[in-house]
């Protein structure tokens, strides 16, 4: 399982105020979506991956792996959009006829497909900039500052922590089952997975009780309050982010 958080903690951009990183990533993502132009998209890809890899120090191999993750969806999605069925052969660049219908690809289909391809990669590189430079704990503090409901942010913090506890348990149980040949064929596989998941659920239930007890032991009063670390707030970076997006917007308007 890929986990971007590990690299976020190691990032050289970690100390920057997460709010700044969040606004920068989201703004650029918005501009990339709005512009919907190959040139702008490619500019965003270069900018964001550059920031992630050169300034943040994220390993190139990890970034590449992340870029491949959505590929299957992207390729299938684009093929589905680009291929059309029609009675009229003239709209296609290339087509086959089946039972009186034509199945094929049109020029505008190809153009739309290519545009979409780069728009998606541009947007995705904005997302990866955020996840490879900002640990989840910092992002939660952004959400808190954005006045998301307290309960929501609290739940997110708890869920995030528990994911790792449960993942570890699940991994150990899967190894134990594999050691006793629990996935030797499809039938035992389903049986094993079913029993593993149910035991995991019961363990999760018990753990939640024990955690509640230990929260109580530290004076729980219905709300989880914690101190937040302070971050460096760099005015120059705000200016830079605005400048970059201004240029991108002009570029898009010029091309339109």
């Amino acid at each position, binding site marked *: 399982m890929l986990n971007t*958080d590990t690299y976020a903690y190691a990032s050289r951009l970690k100390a920057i105020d997460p709010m700044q990183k969040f606004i920068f990533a989201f703004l650029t993502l918005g501009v990339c979506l709005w512009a919907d132009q190959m040139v702008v998209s490619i500019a965003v890809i270069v900018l964001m991956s550059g920031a992630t890899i050169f300034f943040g120090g994220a390993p190139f191999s990890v970034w590449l792996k992340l870029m491949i993750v959505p590929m299957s969806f992207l390729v299938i999605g684009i093929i589905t959009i680009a291929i059309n069925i029609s009675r009229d052969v003239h709209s296609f660049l290339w087509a086959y006829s089946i039972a009186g219908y034509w199945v094929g690809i049109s020029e505008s289909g190809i153009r739309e497909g290519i545009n979409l391809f780069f728009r998606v990669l541009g947007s995705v590189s904005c997302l990866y900039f955020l996840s490879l430079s900002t640990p989840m704990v910092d992002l939660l503090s952004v959400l808190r500052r954005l006045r998301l409901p307290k309960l929501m942010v609290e739940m997110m913090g708890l869920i995030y922590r528990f994911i790792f506890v449960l993942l570890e348990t699940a991994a150990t149980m899967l190894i134990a089952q594999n050691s006793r040949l629990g996935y030797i064929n499809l039938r035992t596989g389903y049986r094993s997975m079913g029993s593993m998941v149910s035991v995991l659920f019961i363990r999760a239930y018990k753990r939640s009780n024990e955690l509640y007890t230990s929260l109580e032991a530290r004076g729980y009063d219905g709300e989880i309050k914690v101190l937040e670390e302070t971050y460096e707030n760099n005015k120059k970076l705000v200016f830079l982010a605005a400048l970059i997006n201004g240029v991108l917007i002009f570029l898009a308007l010029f091309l339109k």
Partner: protein
Amino acid sequence: MNESIMQDNIIQLKDLHYHYPDGTHALKGITITIPKGQVTALLGGNGAGKSTLFQHLNGILKPSSGEVFFDGQPVDYSRKGLLNLRQAVGMVFQDPDNQLFSASVYQDVSYGVLNLQLPKDEAQRRVEHALERTGISHLRNKPTHALSFGQKKRAAIAGVLAMEPQVLVLDEPTAGLDPKGISEIMQLLLETQKGMDLTILIATHDIDIVPLYCDRVFVMDEGEVVLEGTCGEVFAKREKLRNVNLRLPRIGHLMEILKFKDGFALDEIPMTISGARKALKNWRDEKA
């Protein structure tokens, strides 16, 4: 209750009974006093009732009958009373994964402090102090799930110390640690006890650490306290210990055999390495 007892004992349990909702009679008339400023061990096999007893000390469980006194006062189970009690009696649970709820070490340590409604800078000071004392300041920005087991234990202890309790209660603090981890965590506890003027209470079945680090011992079995006293007093009752799934510390066991089976004329049966050295040297010198 007279003045002198109030000064010496910080926690008192009087004929404490506890029935779990399913009917299990987990504690059967516990009467003990925990002396202030010492390290007390609660020894007992698996299922002896140690954890159940602990949860009475800061009001997580309420006795079915009997009474709990803190600092001479019966425990007040109102909201405010409980908050005060929980500030004064800090609990460290066996599995740190059941105690650390935040992915950030810093935030987790700050949680209990913030429940005390202190000014922000005081809260920050306490968190820093707890991080330093437990030696995990450098881990403050690490995610909890990236910590080793020993580091998680320290983080759990820091979260409780930050509340500046008077009593620190630990359930199996050495469980799951390797020998170096054990001696480090016990050393940390002893230093903290002196540095912060704490009373420490440890539930354990790791017998070998008891004579090394603890002043007094209670031995529990099936919901009852069957033995109590100093390490020397308790470990002298060898047969009784064996009856409750425990044993002597290994050094003590060797010395016992030397004295009673092999005819070494030792004055007493020491339980620690240093004690055994002294006893054997005395014996050699007397013989010479």
